[in-house]
């Protein structure tokens, strides 16, 4: 059984809590688990030093981790960490870095893993219409979807060793056009509330934003909403030609549940559907379905949330 190396996920300069899920995924594959923390400041590794089930923590310190160049990331990590099977969180940046790291080491990469039995790894294919299980012989680089494994606990105190690294950065950022709203992007949110054509107008998305602000959610949209209304940008689109999301809670409002929309959100842990048509296909995938217009539902929903979370 080869050693497993978990790469801690950085989100906005902090350790993403799903890193604890990666440790659990590594344990499911077997072997000693080392956590590698890519960082610009080694104190960031303290957050993972308490994880249970970890034999070693390595803080890899480099300026490259402040940027997005995947060559820089992969080369800095490669030089500073041991051989073994490597696990990343399946975010778009980490999937890129995982692919590069695999190439550097002459390994194959298996992306978007949602289930592990020893060296058998399962990932969704055809936008979630089927699953594919592969058998890995020897080491590989793996990315694991968030919110699938329950994270390991904390309470341990692991030693942290610090390695200074430099990376081979190949691209240069010229400018970043900041997102207008401070609200989360759908690809990084744990709760998403999405609106479809049934919202009637883009102005009505303010009702979704109000709910989102109460529960810390991102606001998403169906393709019909994005295509119909200029005000709804493609970056909000969930589905086959939009983003694939995997939140704890997905709330679909005025969305019929076309196969291409389901492709992007069907693996959400819990799905709530609000739709006036009892026959809308979205209800077949909802844990909680409300057959009603959003006009009569959202105010009640909003009040109940405010009372609960006040």
């Amino acid at each position, binding site marked *: 059984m080869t050693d497993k190396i978990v790469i801690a996920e950085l989100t906005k300069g902090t350790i993403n809590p799903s890193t604890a899920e990666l440790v659990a995924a590594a344990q499911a594959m077997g072997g000693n688990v080392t956590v590698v923390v890519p960082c610009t400041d080694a104190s960031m590794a303290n957050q993972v030093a308490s994880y249970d089930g970890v034999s070693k923590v390595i803080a890899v310190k480099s300026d490259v981790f402040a940027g997005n160049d995947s060559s820089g990331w992969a080369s800095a990590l490669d030089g500073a960490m041991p051989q073994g099977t490597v696990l990343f969180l399946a975010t778009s940046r980490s999937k890129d870095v995982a*692919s590069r790291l695999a190439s550097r080491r002459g390994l*194959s990469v298996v992306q978007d893993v949602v289930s592990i039995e020893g060296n058998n790894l399962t990932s969704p294919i*055809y*936008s979630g219409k*089927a699953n594919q299980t592969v058998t890995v012989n020897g080491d590989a680089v793996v990315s694991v979807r968030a919110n699938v494994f329950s994270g390991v606990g904390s309470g341990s105190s692991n030693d942290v060793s610090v390695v200074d690294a430099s990376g081979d950065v190949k691209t240069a950022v010229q400018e970043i056009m900041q997102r207008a709203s401070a609200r989360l992007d759908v690809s990084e949110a744990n709760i998403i509330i999405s609106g479809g054509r049934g919202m009637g107008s883009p102005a009505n998305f303010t009702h979704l934003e109000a709910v989102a602000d109460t529960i810390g959610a991102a606001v998403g949209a169906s393709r019909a909403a994005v295509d119909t209304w200029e005000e709804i940008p493609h970056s909000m689109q969930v589905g086959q030609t939009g983003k694939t999301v995997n939140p704890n809670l997905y709330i679909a409002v005025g969305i019929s549940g076309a196969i291409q929309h389901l492709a992007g959100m069907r693996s959400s842990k819990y799905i709530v559907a609000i739709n006036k048509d009892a026959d809308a296909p979205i209800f077949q995938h*909802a844990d*909680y379905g409300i057959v009603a217009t959003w006009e009569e539902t959202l105010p009640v929903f909003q009040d109940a949330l405010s009372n609960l979370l006040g």
Partner: protein
Amino acid sequence: MNRFSLADTIEMSTIVVLVKQVPDTNAKIAVQGGRVDLSTVKMEMSPYDGFAIETALRHKEATGGTVTALTVGAAGTEKILKDAKAMGVDNIVRVWDDAWSELDSNALQSVLKESIESLGAHAVYCGKSAADTGAGSTGPGLAERLGWANASNIINAEFGDAVTVSMPVEAGVAKISVPLPAVISCDKGDFKPRKANVKGIMMAKKAKVELLTANAPASSVVVAHHSMPAAKPAGKTYEGGSSASEVVQLLRDEANVL
């Protein structure tokens, strides 16, 4: 002898776009005997590859050069090369060896690296992911093998000595200068794939597919089986907007997500 020809001083871009055949994304998928059964499913070019072809053609239009569409696949995959030709690429290439069946990412990218080097490419475009696995490993993985820069999921590009791409990052949308040679993967963005015109379709009919082969290392990742996703247990359905308060309570007490 120390003579320079014009061709030596002005470097024309050799642009390659990677395309892949996948099942029609609207098709129902069934599993038979532990394997996905595609016998009745129409096959097509992976949708994101259309954005890659469009970006590659715009690159050529800006700087001059040639665009070659390349796929790794058995003879049955030539239809998508013809589709690429009809959109306006100059050359179409299929890389294959009948000894290959399922190539893992290491084998596939090794084959691509050898093929790209033999074509002498300066820029490679591909879709952000293929609609079958959705993995998105090929662009960055190939770039690393070639020692090139890469950018993924781009939504716009300007072409010069470097390609300046727009891509989403945590904080918003970044404009990034990607020096050539590079591998660039394309998301749906500002560039709408052009439709093939009649002349293009006629030319595609006559176009010859160049055949290449390469060395593929043995695969260490092998497909064990396919399965259908577990059906979700039936959910609870409520009538009327006033039920929303009950649902909120259940989201807290039953689902533990609030």
